[in-house]
């Protein structure tokens, strides 16, 4: 034994192993040792919902990889050609080179259709993943200081993802996406005064012209993904810099992170998870068809099909336009198409409503401290109710966007659905808000009950005098801590309206509003006081209670 180890030592003194020498070489030039030392043991907390962002990151990488493959065969040109590929029902049809090359990718390039489907399914899943990830961050309050900027980065990624998706599915120049581009052109045209100029600028003349595929191509493969890549890197750097948030629990404070080190645990987990994500998306792409352009045919402005919807992430804009009454105003020979222009204005507002929320909350609550412990959604009823109301609003618009399929599949009148959406657009978020808040308060009461009286064990006991009681098991110290770890705030007051000299100061409208909103957040109506130590002691020290 000893001889063996000494011989090893002497050998290493003579010449370091190849790996070490390479690392030394790199460290001398890149300083990787200090970087690695600082970051390799970085701790990340463990929870499945913290992996939603990973799903987004990996599907983004998959989209880039498959997208590169597709660019090798796609011709972003609107020159007209006659189809002579292997799909019989389109033989001899005139189409743009963009459509022709997409047909070529789908039927005549090895693995082309699978790659196309992976690219498209991954895009739908990327956006869906971002949506759920965003909601996870929202409902747990992970957007609070110091993470507001990262929230905005994430929001921008979602919006840019929407437009990258839109420009992407428009590229094949098929009848479905062409209808979508026409829809967009209509929205641009509805802008007062400059609409027509914008449209002519965008399409290089009258719609559809011969330019838009090439222009969308540059936007789709260069401009938007470039910005997104930068934002993704920034997003990740900030996650590293801020450290990851964690749920409350024993030993977890606002100043530490309890979890596993990046190396080796998270490297193995995250690396493995990448392949799992790739595997699931590849399997779905092998099983289910997406955007079958051969069935839709090439775009021609004189043709249109029913069931022409955008991909799901643009569906709420479709809903806005479908349920909007066709109002228009004519004056001095000009037409203001409110039926299209109003939806165009509401479209960004729907998104902005959720994006600005963190700033509104921090203004209302006046909370400027850092938060690294996540909230349980029930403990912040007003925020949770707002989030559910927003999701309800979004879903109502999605129903509007698919009103024809709701009509055919549930045997309803499309007019009735449209009216339902028009009313629900205003009413449903309010109802959702009220119901969610009630549920949150109910759950808070349940938590309080659990802390004070323990868990219902389901065991029924008969006392000597004949009374039946259910035995409650006291919770463990860990569970008690977790259920009572959250802070409860008092509503912000307006403050003294009379200064030290007895002079009345003017209370600003914004101050009054803020006090009212703060009351809505932390007033008696909005939180159940958590059990105090005295309450707990009194109840647990007594005898004969159950």
């Amino acid at each position, binding site marked *: 034994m000893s001889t063996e180890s000494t011989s090893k030592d002497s050998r290493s003194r003579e010449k370091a192993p190849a790996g070490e020498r390479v690392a030394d070489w790199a460290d001398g030039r890149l300083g990787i040792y200090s970087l690695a030392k600082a970051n390799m043991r970085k701790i990340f907390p463990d929870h499945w919902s913290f992996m939603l962002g990973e799903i987004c990151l990996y599907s983004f990488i998959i989209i880039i990889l498959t997208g590169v493959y597709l660019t090798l065969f796609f011709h972003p040109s609107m020159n007209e050609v006659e189809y002579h590929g292997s799909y019989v029902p389109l033989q001899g049809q005139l189409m743009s080179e963009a459509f022709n090359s997409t047909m070529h990718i*789908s039927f005549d390039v090895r693995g082309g259709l699978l790659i196309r*489907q992976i690219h498209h399914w991954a895009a739908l899943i990327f956006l869906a*993943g971002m949506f759920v990830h965003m909601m996870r961050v929202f409902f747990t309050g992970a957007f609070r200081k110091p993470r507001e900027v990262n929230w905005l980065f994430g929001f921008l990624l979602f919006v840019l993802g929407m437009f990258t998706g839109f420009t992407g599915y428009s590229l094949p120049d098929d009848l479905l996406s062409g209808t979508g581009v026409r829809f967009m052109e209509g929205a641009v045209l509805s802008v007062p005064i400059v609409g027509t100029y914008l449209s002519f600028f965008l399409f290089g003349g009258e719609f559809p012209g011969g330019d838009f595929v090439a222009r969308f191509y540059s936007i789709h493969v260069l401009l938007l993904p470039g910005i997104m890549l930068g934002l993704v890197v920034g997003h990740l750097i900030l996650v590293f810099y801020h450290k990851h948030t964690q749920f409350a629990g024993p030993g977890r404070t606002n100043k530490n992170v309890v979890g596993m080190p990046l190396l080796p645990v998270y490297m193995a987990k995250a690396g493995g998870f990448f392949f799992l994500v790739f595997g699931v998306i590849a399997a779905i792409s092998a099983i289910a*068809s997406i955007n079958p352009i051969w069935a839709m*045919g090439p775009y021609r402005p004189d043709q249109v*099909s*029913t*069931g022409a919807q955008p991909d799901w992430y643009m569906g709420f804009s479709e809903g806005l336009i479908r349920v909007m009454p066709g109002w228009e105003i004519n004056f001095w020979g000009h037409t203001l198409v409110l039926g299209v222009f109003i939806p165009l204005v509401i479209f960004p507002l729907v998104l902005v409503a959720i994006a600005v929320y963190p700033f509104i909350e921090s203004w209302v609550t006046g909370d400027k401290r850092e938060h690294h412990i996540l909230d349980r959604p029930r403990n912040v009823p007003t925020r949770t109710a707002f989030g559910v109301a927003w999701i309800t609003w979004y879903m109502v618009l999605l129903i509007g*966007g698919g009103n024809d399929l709701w009509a055919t599949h549930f045997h309803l009148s499309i007019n009735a659905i449209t009216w339902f959406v028009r009313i629900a657009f205003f009413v449903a978020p309010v109802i959702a808000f009220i119901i969610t808040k009630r549920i949150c308060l109910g759950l808070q009461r349940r938590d309080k009950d659990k802390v004070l009286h323990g868990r219902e064990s389901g065991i029924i006991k008969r006392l000597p005098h004949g009374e039946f009681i259910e035995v409650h098991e006291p919770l463990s110290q860990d569970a008690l801590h977790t259920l009572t770890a959250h802070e409860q705030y008092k509503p912000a007051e307006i403050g003294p309206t009379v200064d030290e000299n007895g002079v009345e100061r003017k209370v600003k409208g914004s101050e009054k509003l803020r006090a009212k909103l703060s009351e809505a957040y932390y007033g008696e109506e909005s939180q159940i006081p958590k059990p105090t130590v005295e309450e707990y002691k009194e109840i647990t020290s007594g005898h004969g209670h159950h």
Partner: protein
Amino acid sequence: MAALVVLLLALACTGGLYTLFAPTDKAKADETAQSLAIDEGKKLYAVGCASCHGTGGQGTTDGPSLVGVGAAAVDFQVGTGRMPAQQPGAQVPKKKVIYTQAEIDQLAAYIASLGAGPNVPTDAQYGPEGADIAKGGELFRTNCAQCHNFTGKGGALTHGKFAPDLEGVSPKHIYEAMQTGPQNMPSFPDTTLSEQNKKDIIAYLDAVNGDDTESPGGLELGGLGPVSEGLFAWIFGLGALIAVAVWVAARTAKAKKS
């Protein structure tokens, strides 16, 4: 139902007896056959159709006039089970066919005798020989897709009406529907869509929405476009990935128990 069957049998018997004893010497053979079919059709009509369409096919508030709709309209409506209608509503859906083809022909002969209209097409008119599928696709996207979807999967119309899915509809009935424009569908007479055009469209539908149609990309998801794709991506795509995430997170590194 039993009463209807008895009634039909009784009518058939009386009709049969009538044909046996009726004087046939006045007219020639085919004319006789034709007029017999008309007579039979008239009786069937009086039982199954007259309550809504009027005793002479003149129409009532419950059903339109059938004068001039032609044999093709009868063959389509009764042959797909749409007529006799089960109940009034936004649209009369297709259901089980309750008349035999012979009875449908008799009804058609009677309605055709009320006024000239399109005839039932022959196999040569709607058969696949000499059809141009690609041309049919172009015509379908120009004339039909706005209600029936890209490949004829159907779509919604106003107030609960709908354009039905065209899968499994026989070529003859598709031809007749184009010719006569049943219910909410506009009609496409030969002056609008020539015989050859109709043949092309039927061949296209058979290629993209028939029994032997292959879906190169895998499951078709109803052929309904992005709505069903979005649902699939959310439920099976993201659903599976979240399940995998929960699975991975549940398998965390632990200190070895000794």
